[in-house]
């Protein structure tokens, strides 16, 4: 019924859950989400696989569930990756326009992009993305497409995301072990920003933070391009761990307390309140101070935002956030988390809505699925592109930023 190219699957192997989203790219280029599968993740710490066998099992569960729901056979996936080894930076390429009439051709554009991508990275590092930003023609800033313009010197900025090759391979091998192909690997923060932001928000400038279980991935878009990306290897697991340590309860109990009673702020009402935890027989077993719980939690969350803020400040992108901060990932469920983000970043903060996609709406409009949906969206761009052009080597990745803009 479906032909292979129209089915796009995004797979995110997260620290707390594995999530597979199946999208159907219809003939009229409309993307429709038709299936969703998820499983608890056990073999991942801080966004990276530490136990391959267990992770493989979890991925299988999620894939099988998604296959059942979408009624398709999944053969290949777009895989989301994260981890503290990933880094993003901007690099500029310069190319002198050689033709006699000084008209910039598509070849010149390819050449300048190639020159921008030649980056001096350690041998063990792999370039995940090299996303085109704006062109400069003879120093004139902010040109989205220079083909056909006149100029003698063409420059382009690319945003490069790179990471340790072996650690990236771990995730790929896990998926390949299940007889699945990996179409491409995508940085989770980038995928989340694809899923959440409308083109207007990208133009205006916004920060997307995926508050995951093991890491907080973030990306800054402004003027329609990706300005900055980063990973902070601190996430919901850390909150649970802090609670387990501070309240002297087990990790699973801490996790439960976090979900049921957690908050981003300590309110005066919490003072002196306590929670009674039952033991396995349902009898009162231990009391926990609610104020302490929320204080531990709010300190950690505030620190996460603050560290991200510091990084953005260092990268000089803090002033671009005119549309605000968009939160997704499981951490976005924490009550009043947007208020905390507003307080730290001093700009409006929202929970990200993945409303630019049709299908399974109510089930999908949850912040924790944003990254997986973004992966599908990333895949749909690649597929459309390879449909448009016969030579897909041309279309490969370097056009991401263009697609990014025409959302």
């Amino acid at each position, binding site marked *: 019924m479906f032909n292979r190219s129209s089915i796009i699957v995004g797979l995110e192997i997260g620290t707390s859950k594995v999530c597979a989203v199946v999208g159907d790219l219809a003939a009229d280029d409309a993307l429709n989400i038709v299936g969703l599968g998820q499983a608890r993740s056990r073999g991942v710490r801080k966004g990276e696989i530490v136990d391959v066998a267990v992770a493989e099992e979890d991925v299988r569960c999620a894939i099988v569930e998604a296959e059942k729901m979408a009624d398709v056979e999944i053969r290949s996936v777009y895989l989301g990756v994260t981890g503290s080894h990933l880094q993003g930076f901007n690099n500029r390429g310069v190319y002198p326009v050689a033709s006699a009439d000084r008209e910039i051709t598509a070849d010149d554009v390819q050449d300048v992009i190639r020159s921008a991508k030649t980056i001096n990275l350690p041998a063990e590092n792999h370039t995940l993305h090299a996303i085109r930003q704006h062109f400069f023609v003879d120093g004139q800033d902010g040109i989205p497409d220079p083909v056909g313009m006149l100029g003698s010197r063409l420059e382009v900025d690319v945003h490069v995301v790179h990471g340790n090759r072996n650690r990236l391979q771990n995730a790929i091998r896990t998926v390949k072990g299940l007889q699945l192909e990996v179409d491409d690997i995508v940085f989770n923060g980038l995928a989340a920003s694809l899923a959440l932001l409308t083109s207007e928000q990208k133009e205006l400038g916004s920060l997307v933070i995926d508050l995951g279980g093991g890491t907080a991935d973030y990306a800054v878009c402004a003027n329609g391009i990706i300005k900055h990306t980063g990973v902070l290897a601190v996430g919901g697991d850390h909150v649970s761990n802090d609670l387990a340590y501070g309240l002297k309860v087990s*990790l699973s109990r801490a996790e439960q307390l976090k979900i049921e009673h957690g908050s981003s702020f300590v309110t005066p009402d919490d003072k002196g309140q306590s929670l009674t935890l039952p033991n396995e027989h349902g009898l009162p077993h231990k009391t926990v101070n609610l104020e302490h719980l929320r204080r531990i939690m709010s300190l950690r969350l505030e620190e996460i935002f603050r560290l991200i803020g510091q990084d953005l400040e260092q990268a000089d992108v803090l002033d671009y956030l005119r549309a605000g901060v968009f939160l997704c990932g499981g951490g976005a469920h924490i009550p009043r988390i947007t208020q905390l983000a507003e307080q730290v970043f001093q700009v409006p903060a929202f929970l990200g809505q993945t409303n630019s996609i049709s299908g399974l709406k109510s089930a999908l409009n949850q912040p924790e699925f944003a990254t997986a949906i973004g992966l599908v969206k990333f895949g749909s761009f690649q597929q459309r592109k390879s449909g448009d052009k016969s030579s897909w080597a041309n279309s490969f990745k370097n056009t991401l930023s263009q697609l990014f803009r025409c959302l």
Partner: protein
Amino acid sequence: MITSAHNEAVVTTPHRTLAVQIIGVGGAGITLVELMRQGEPSGADFAVVDTDARSLAVSGARKKVHLEIPHPRGLGGGNDPDRGRALAEEQFSKLKALFTGADMVFVLAGLGGGAGTGIGPVVARAAKEAGALTLGFVAMPFDCEGRHRQRLALQGLTQFKAAADGAICLPNQKLCKLIDENTSVLETFKIINEFLVTGVFGVWRLLRHRGVIEIPFAELTALLQDRHTECALAIAEAIGPTRSREVMDKLLAHPLLDGGQVLVEAETVWVNLTGGPDLSMADINRVMGQINEQCERAQVIMGATVDETFKDRLAITLVAARKHPECDAWTKTAPNFGEPDQPRLSPLTGERSGSRFASVAPVLTPEQVAQLPARQGSGALRQRKSASRMRQAQLPLEIVSKGRFDKSEPTVHKGEDLDVPTYIRQGVPLN
């Protein structure tokens, strides 16, 4: 930064010169004082104290105090700090009289022997009681000098910290890393002595300022007085057009800073930059920017001096002061340190009671205490183990379990381990 108005005010205020007294205690102290006298004799008053009449006779310092020991015929304290201490206590008023009128006293001593370890802390206390800001410069023995000397030296250091406002510890062993291992013994000693002297000069320069940006003595006093800190000292120098960058690399690689760990833990950091007339604001900014980044928690005090002879050169003297939590306890129980025969037992039981998990050591009768080392087994390995464990107990940190992140790669951000709960790192109390 300092505004021009402030600068002017500084220039116009007439200064009373700071009365600095440098006192060498014991053989090592006297050697250092001699070297210093040759180096820069202006502005400081030198004094020496020893039990050995011969080494005193060699010294050309203005004031000399000979603490006479009745029986070893004036030849040193017999490597017994207790005897040295007792002698010094007897002559306490005499020692105190040495420091009348001094604003600042540097006590130079080599620890591990009889005189420096025993007399040094008493001298420091005398100086402090005489009203001076007292800093101890203490050289720790080499590892090869044996564990007994190390132990004595560690005890001496603790007493120094308790007695003086600050103790700057100069472990000889770590300094060895600065020197090529094939250097001859004489050369090594010379280099180390020079390092110690440059260190003292560096701190002295820090105080005597004559700088473009100066460190007010009052501020320093306020920061140091009664803090009983342990300080690390690092000096770096670079020449050439990229000196501001090089000097920072050298400084951060300095063995006494333990790979920058000391800076992260420091609570006060003083920095003095010395450059030639071509010292630029950009240089200062670059260096201070990096230092500030390294030690976010510390209060950084900076000074800058212009020295005509420093053309194209840039030198940094950095003193990082860190307070040991147990120091308060030491100051309160100060005079009563364990006898050198059983030091392993007395400090250790004190430390242990702080732990929440290990039970307090049982109270033992003196006979049992005497039996205990025998019961520890005669194997050398065993003994070394217990000695190293004792040293580890001096770490100021309580080990926080990282729970589920115990085995994963730590998330370290600017020297902070983010896997440790935030509330613990920020010191937020949960009552």
